[in-house]
């Protein structure tokens, strides 16, 4: 038998490492939903909370090389570029804000949705939102650790693009 380790030689593209998160995430979603008896919405908040804790911790490391952020917009910009490309290997495609604490982050090909439906596909539209709860929490957690308390919701109008709405609570 040939012995193949998970080193870079056997797996030059890093496929194993990259998909590990995707598979684990999929299992988390299935597990959490299988625990739900009646109220699915309630269960998704557990997933969101997991995301929050992960985001809260991961931002410590990702932002360590950065000097302090000037303002809120600076933080969001960091999230859109460095944070997103570290986690999902691409940047946010579109950022909009009303300059009063509401931000809209649009990803035209969100990694966790990319294998589910093509442009304009309606097939899995109903099941897809559950795949976003963790990422919402991730955003909320990282923003919280950077000092911006917020609520994050997600919206899918057509796969595989999605929009994250961030509402920062002003003190």
């Amino acid at each position, binding site marked *: 038998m040939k012995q193949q380790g998970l080193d870079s030689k056997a797996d030059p593209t890093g496929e194993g490492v990259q998909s590990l998160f995707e598979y684990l995430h999929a299992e988390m*979603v299935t597990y959490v939903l299988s625990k739900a008896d009646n109220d699915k919405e309630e269960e998704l908040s557990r997933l969101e909370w997991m995301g929050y804790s992960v985001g809260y911790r991961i931002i410590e490391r990702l932002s360590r090389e950065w000097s302090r952020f000037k303002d809120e917009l600076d933080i969001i910009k960091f999230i859109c570029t460095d944070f997103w490309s570290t986690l999902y290997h691409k940047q946010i495609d579109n950022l909009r804000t009303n300059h009063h604490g509401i931000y809209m982050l649009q990803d035209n090909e969100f990694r966790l949705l990319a294998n589910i439906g093509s442009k304009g596909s309606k097939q899995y539209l109903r099941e897809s939102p559950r795949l976003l709860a963790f990422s919402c929490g991730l955003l909320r957690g990282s923003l919280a650790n950077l000092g911006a308390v917020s609520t994050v919701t997600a919206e899918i109008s057509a796969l595989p693009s999605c929009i994250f709405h961030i509402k920062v609570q002003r003190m």
Partner: protein
Amino acid sequence: MTIHNLYIFSRNGTLLYYSEWNRLNKSGITMEEEAKLMYGMLFSIKSFVSKISPLDPKEGFLYYKTSKYTLHYLETPSGLKFVLNTDNGAQNIRGLLQQLYSQVYLEYVVKNPLCQLNEPIQSELFKQKVDALIKHSQYF
């Protein structure tokens, strides 16, 4: 050159996916029966080849050819079976089958958490991608 049709079978013989592009002769039986027939034949050929082979059969059964068409067969270590019928002119379809497995099945079925494994594939994206890959291949 022509590609006629494609069957994907799971490890235990469920027909996961069927698609056809150029099939002039219908089998005259239902799809279920046809799939059973096809799987049974492949199963027999496989065991025939491994029993009759005078040497270590290595990859085993690769393809067969009649006067009109060639059936290409790829089985993955996990037992997934890809069967593609083409005309006799097509050479080295193996690469195409490998691509089908690694670039389409892996990406759009295995990595889609909403797809159940070992059940017929419903994903429309998967269908689209199979179609695109086959139609853009040089053999089509």
